[in-house]
């Protein structure tokens, strides 16, 4: 039966894929991750407006790469190596030591910058994939009740990107009707203000509408319990962040990642359980969590595990040297893991038309 997958499954899948991308600067692995994200998006996105946002994220990613390389050429610290060409360099005052403007540009520096830019771009593509695949509103709906106080902010923020992309389109049309160039660099100028203005207006309307429709109604909760919930929630978020940092940054002590994440998860679960009684919300037709959701989550986690195993066994293959430049290769476990992440493209139900 066609149905849309639980939004949390898509987000976990995409975040795991993104976490995998953060562990490697190998361009082949990164491109593979990007390709997997693209494949799943084109085969499983619906036709809602946010489903088209993947393309925008990819475009932003390409700009990130370009800007990262350009900055390297103009400003960055010089890496020794084969000089490609030299820009006229400008002497900066001594208090700006460490920053240089212009000067020789080496292949090594360009390649390093490209790898770093590509990593960010692929991470963006993963977030974009989650954005295209999962309805942000449905995701918010399955947030536990205790988090609802931050919900207005989150809903407004979530609606920002799709609405902005719709309004970019409308502003471009309006510009064409006004006889202004609507594409290219010239078209980009003067696009930002009307789009942001429109998005802000809409955000206000949306917040008013949520308020008028009973969002965030109080339910009677004893003061003490509320305080305990909030403390546990704060600690849980902190522990989760520390854990995530540990897992993403290969150089941190290995004892940090998993235990902190587990600790955070327990605290959060406790807080959510305690706070569950706080809201008198009910749910209309909740999204089911069935086998395809488990498969999707497992596929995402497989990508991360694959990359992590490769990092443990053969760290050099995940961060191919740039000085001197070493041709990147595809490490076995990482490749296998990332390829497994493509399974949801076939193993999940199609979205409802």
């Amino acid at each position, binding site marked *: 039966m066609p149905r849309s997958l639980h939004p949390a499954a898509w987000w976990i899948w995409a975040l795991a894929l993104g976490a995998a991308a953060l562990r490697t600067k190998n361009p082949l692995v990164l491109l593979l991750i990007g390709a997997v994200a693209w494949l799943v998006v084109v085969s499983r996105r*619906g*036709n*809602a*407006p*946010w489903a088209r946002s993947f393309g925008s994220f990819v475009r932003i990613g390409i700009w990130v790469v370009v800007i990262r390389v350009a900055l390297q050429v103009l400003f960055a610290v010089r890496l020794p190596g084969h000089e490609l060409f030299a820009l006229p360099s400008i002497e900066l005052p001594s208090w700006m030591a460490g920053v240089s403007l212009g000067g020789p540009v080496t292949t090594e520096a360009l390649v390093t910058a490209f790898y770093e830019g590509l990593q960010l771009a692929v991470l963006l593509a993963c977030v974009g994939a989650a954005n295209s695949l999962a*309805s*942000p*509103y*449905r995701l918010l*709906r399955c947030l536990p009740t205790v988090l609802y106080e931050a919900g207005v902010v989150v*809903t407004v923020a979530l609606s920002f990107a799709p609405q902005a992309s*719709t309004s970019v389109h*409308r*502003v471009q*049309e*309006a*510009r*064409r*009707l*006004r*006889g*202004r*160039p*609507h594409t290219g660099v010239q078209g980009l100028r*003067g696009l930002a*203000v*009307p789009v942001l203005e429109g998005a802000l*207006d*809409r955000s206000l*309307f*949306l*917040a*008013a*509408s*949520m*308020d*008028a*429709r*009973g*969002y*965030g*109604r*109080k339910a009677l909760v004893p003061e003490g319990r509320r305080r305990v919930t909030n403390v546990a929630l704060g600690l849980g978020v902190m522990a989760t962040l520390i854990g995530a940092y540990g897992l993403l940054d290969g150089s941190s002590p290995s004892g940090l990642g998993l235990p902190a994440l587990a600790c955070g998860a327990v605290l959060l679960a406790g807080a959510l359980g305690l706070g569950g009684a706080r*809201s*008198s*919300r*009910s*749910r*209309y*037709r909740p999204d089911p969590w069935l086998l395809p959701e488990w498969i999707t989550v497992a596929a995402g986690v497989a990508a991360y595990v694959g990359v992590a195993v490769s990092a443990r066994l053969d760290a050099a293959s995940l961060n191919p040297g740039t000085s001197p430049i070493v041709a990147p290769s595809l490490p076995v476990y990482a490749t296998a893991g990332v390829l497994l992440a493509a399974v949801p493209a076939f193993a999940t139900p199609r979205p*409802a038309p």
Partner: protein
Amino acid sequence: MIRFDHVTFTYAEAPEPALRDVDLHIPGGELWLVIGETGSGKSTLLQAINGLVPHFTGGELLGRVEVDGLATSTHPPRELAGTVGMVGQDPDAGFVTDVVEDELAYTMENLGVAPAVMRRRVEDVLDLLNLHPLRTRALASLSSGQKQRVAIGSALTASPRVLVLDEPTSALDPGAAEEVLAALTRLVHDLGITVVTAEHRLERVLQYADRVAVVEGGRVSVASPAEAMVGASVVPPVVALGRAVGWSPLPLSVRDARRLADGLRSRLPVGPVVPPHHAPDGDPDVVPLPGAVVGSTTRLGARYGSVVALRDVSLDVRAGEVLAVMGRNGAGKSTLLAHLAGLREPTDGKVTIDGQVPHRLKARDLVRRVALVPADPGMLLYAETIDAECRGADRDSALDPGTTRAAVERIVPGLDPAAHPRDVSEGQRLGVALGVVLAPAPPLVLLDEPTRGLDYVAKARLVEILRELSASGHAVVMATHDVELVAEVAGRVVVLADGEVVADGPAREVVCHSPIFAPQVAKVLAPDEWLTVAEVEAALAS
């Protein structure tokens, strides 16, 4: 049910109060109509009912507002959600979820309604507002009329005691508007819900209203509909007809008027002598015939994904004619305009404007041939001041400095050039947008829903502008639901249904015999073909 006790409200940093000493009592189970010009304080009054004013907007509220015994001073909007259902002006901006069904259930979820009850109420509302075929659709894919119905539905599912609506039918086609109003009256009659609605198109709502609250400069006076119409400066056509012929009491609905019209029909000839839409300056001898073809479509077809928006549309638009494109919400009217304006590439067939293919033209060349004012004219304006807007337009289209300013001045005289385009009234904004796109003197002018959100004063001015445009040889194509506007200005009407042309002919022929698109005067005097009060008055005078 709703009680305003000496309410005075001032927005933060506003020099004048938006509401002055409002004293109102709206009993339960009545339908109240709130009327007044744009900026008179209508929306503020409505938002004060559920506490959005002042809880959300800020500002200072003196006095007391009470709904069903709950004071808004102590109960913020979210606590009143189960009591007051609110439908804003722009349904799109108020949607919180993304699918019709979820949106309908949203308020109930917040109120903690039991799942089984939610299922049942959603089904009830789907039937009540005829939303059943749309239940799984993404909100973004709906037409504006469908969106409006979903917005009303999502307020209804929570079964509120009071329903507040701001311009609920302004985006709807006449058929859908009738449906919504029928649903509202059913709510009032059968379920005893109190309905408070603001509306510019009096002709649609007046007959259903129990009381009318007239808002003028923040002051509110209450009268029965008939009393309110006696001294009102703007009235729906059926009332205007009653005044012109001297009926008393004034008829408020077509049915009332038909009962009185027998005598009138015998005094009138069978039909008007002069087609008035071609006599813009009151000189019936000068009837400019439509001139050369300025734009045409040949077997035009358009598709969005798998949805066919237009099929085999062949039209010629001639200089000097005002062509109204009518049809249901989602029938393809806006798509047709977008193709004529060169915003989209046709899937099939072709579009020609002035011998050129519009979507291939450079923006700068395009604006000299065709102008389109979208349903939200503010989209066209993005400078900080009206003056900067005009100067920018001169630059863009390589016009002599001051050309645009003069064009705007001709349409909306006396605007403050330093004002921000967002700060002027709805009607003035439309005027500025029109002026800006008309400055390069395009022979073809397209308007999408020009009367949406306009009060009667602004609409009267729009009618004048359209007549001037057609008299000066422009071809005007407007997509509209406003049958009274069509009766006033259109010479020719094209009716679209599901993307196909189902009628194309002189306005009088097309609209007079349609049960949906006929203006009030035509309905009153049917089967004789009269369109406007002015025609009847002229015939009586001669």
